[in-house]
């Protein structure tokens, strides 16, 4: 394993020399080939399925329907409901996680920096299987026996149906998600804060800049790359939310928590209409790619 002191051209035979010259391709090739193999078939299938009507009966041929599956999106009320719910969930959950995460990190940075143990403890929620998280929150939210209502009751507040209440169902899902993922943002922000350079702050201090100005002019710009990555990862995951809804509400009550993944799942497997499901999926993929490209360009994550 120790570095040799031989000159580059003296190593090995022709193969090693060839490998060394082609290193840039050889190091990239395995990942690219694996990903190509894993995504090309699903992608082609998705494009092909999206323009067909596919019967669950294997004896019937696929029927070419052109853009019919896409025009159906326009008039499908359930799709629009799912789209709206997904948007609400993504915007609210990610914003709250971000504000809490950043706020806590700013507040605690100085005091928690040496407490690595504590930071690891705070990571526990995101290590739990989402399915177990969903089931636990279901118990906590239970209107008759749940802990949350017991606490409300003790505090003299009106008890609620939480996941069973039309107006609180989405809120309940968001709370569970915020609980699981705020620590992630918090830790990312802490890591970002830990690597801030000291000199600019000293200079600002000498200029008499207020804490607030320092925050906006120094901290935020320095943190921007971390913030960007954190938001990007969270948004990508929020758009595909499934387990929590599947267990906690099944999309109800009154369709208030039906999100796109759940709807795609139902269309593809419950209603056995993979062609239409592929069309919705393409739409989701398109939105995700457009959003993240725009975001990355703005945040200058790609050169």
């Amino acid at each position: 394993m120790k570095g040799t002191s031989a000159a580059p051209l003296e190593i090995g035979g022709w193969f090693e020399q060839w490998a060394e010259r082609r290193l840039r391709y050889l190091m990239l090739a395995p990942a690219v080939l694996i990903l190509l193999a894993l995504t090309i078939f699903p992608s082609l299938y998705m494009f092909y399925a999206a323009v067909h009507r596919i019967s669950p009966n294997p004896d019937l041929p696929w029927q070419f329907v052109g853009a019919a599956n896409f025009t159906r999106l326009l008039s499908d009320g359930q799709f629009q409901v799912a789209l709206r719910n997904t948007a609400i969930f993504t915007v609210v959950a990610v914003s709250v996680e971000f504000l809490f995460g950043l706020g806590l990190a700013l507040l605690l940075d100085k005091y928690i920096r040496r407490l690595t143990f504590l930071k690891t403890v705070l990571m526990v929620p995101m290590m739990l299987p989402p399915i177990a998280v969903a089931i636990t929150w279901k118990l906590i939210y239970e209107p008759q026996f749940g802990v949350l209502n017991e606490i409300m009751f003790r505090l003299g507040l009106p008890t609620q149906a939480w996941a069973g209440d039309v107006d609180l169902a989405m809120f309940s899902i968001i709370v569970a998600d915020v609980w699981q993922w705020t620590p992630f943002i918090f830790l990312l922000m802490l890591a970002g804060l830990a690597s801030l350079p000291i000199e600019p702050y000293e200079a600002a201090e000498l200029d008499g800049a207020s804490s607030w100005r320092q925050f906006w002019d120094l901290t935020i710009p320095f943190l921007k790359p971390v913030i960007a990555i954190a938001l990007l990862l969270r948004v990508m995951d929020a758009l595909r939310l499934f387990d929590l809804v599947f267990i906690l509400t099944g999309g109800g009550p009154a369709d208030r928590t039906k999100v796109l993944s759940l709807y795609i799942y139902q269309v593809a497997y419950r209603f056995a209409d993979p062609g239409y499901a592929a069309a919705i999926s393409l739409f989701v993929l398109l939105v995700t790619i457009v959003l993240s490209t725009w975001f990355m360009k703005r945040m200058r994550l790609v050169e």
Partner: protein
Amino acid sequence: MLRKMSLALAVATAVLAVNASAWADITILVPSGSEGDGLRAAAADYAKLKGTKVEIVQAPYANVFEQGANAGATRSGVFDIILMDDPWIPFFAENGHLEDLTTYFKNAGVEGPDDDFLSKSRAICRNPYNEGPYVCLPYVGNAQMFFYDAAKFKEVGVESPDNWDNVLKAAKALTEQGGGRYFGYVFRGGQGNPVVADFMPIFWSYGADMFDQGRTKVTIDTPEGAEAMKMFMALRDVSPKGVESYNANEVGTAMAAGTAASSINWPNWVATFEDPSQSRMVGKISYSPIPDGTKPGSSEIGHWTMGIMSAAKNKQEAFDFMMWATSPEQIKISAERGNPPVRRSVFTDPELAKQEKFRHYPVLMEAIEASTPRPRHPKWPEIENAFGIELSKAVAGTITPEEALKNSQAAVEQITGLK
């Protein structure tokens, strides 16, 4: 670091290489849960008895239909027999996923399942219902029953829950007394399958149905439907807050914990109610068939049935196993393992009848004999979803019951193409 990682990779790959797919004569897909556990135990007995290797594969209940549909649509022969919930039968049968059993019966020298099976249990296994060829055999005899706390009902002057007006009267009085901690009625209001399952029996007992005879017209938005809906909404008003997300489990738990006085539920809960480690209501819950409306009450049937996949590799062996597993002796063993039977001889078996844990059998048999299947349509999952959304909205109060009926009528007409 890299060396350690490569080592881990090598070890993982080596372990995987050993994991070749197991070879079996018959493979059966079951839901995880008591139905699946029962069939798993039977399969083990069969393997011992006949020297046939039977493999059980399983999926969570919420995913069994999807597994069946995936395997059927792609003709993958990953399993030969599927243990399925009866509302799925039209989908599987009419999309060519299931084997027609007629010739298998003929080769076995019989016309079909014998008369000892309850007639409704047999009817459900034919597609179209009660008329077409057999596509499966009944295994677990579920049908909804009405569960209630007889003492509490008596306290408020209701002797028996024989019709919905009485149930409502008792429930209303009990909920008013309960002060927000005790309720007269509880039901499954969760969007989708749950709310539909608990509405259908009320719907039927007021003479309504989803389709007319012969499936030519959608008949949800009718005067009968409106009457059923009215009762359903009245019952909702006396149910606990949060039923909008309840499923069978929450309903059963409310009964077992003694916070609700009555509900519709599946017979599997009988065992739970009588188990002191799970219930505060041991010996206090009574069972009856579904109450009457303006018409005799009808319970929703929820049988688990075994069918052979068209893409199965070993169809004859699969059929032989199914015949064996549904024989009177085996159905009795299955009943002792906790799954309700489908045969009259087992329901009335004197040895079982004298045991406390089977005291609901006469009621259950009556419920099955008076049961109605969920509307038989190959697009049932989609219909159930649409109907479930509208019912959920009505239960949550975001639309009026009238709108719910009207929207359901329109949605089901669109899905089925019936106008």
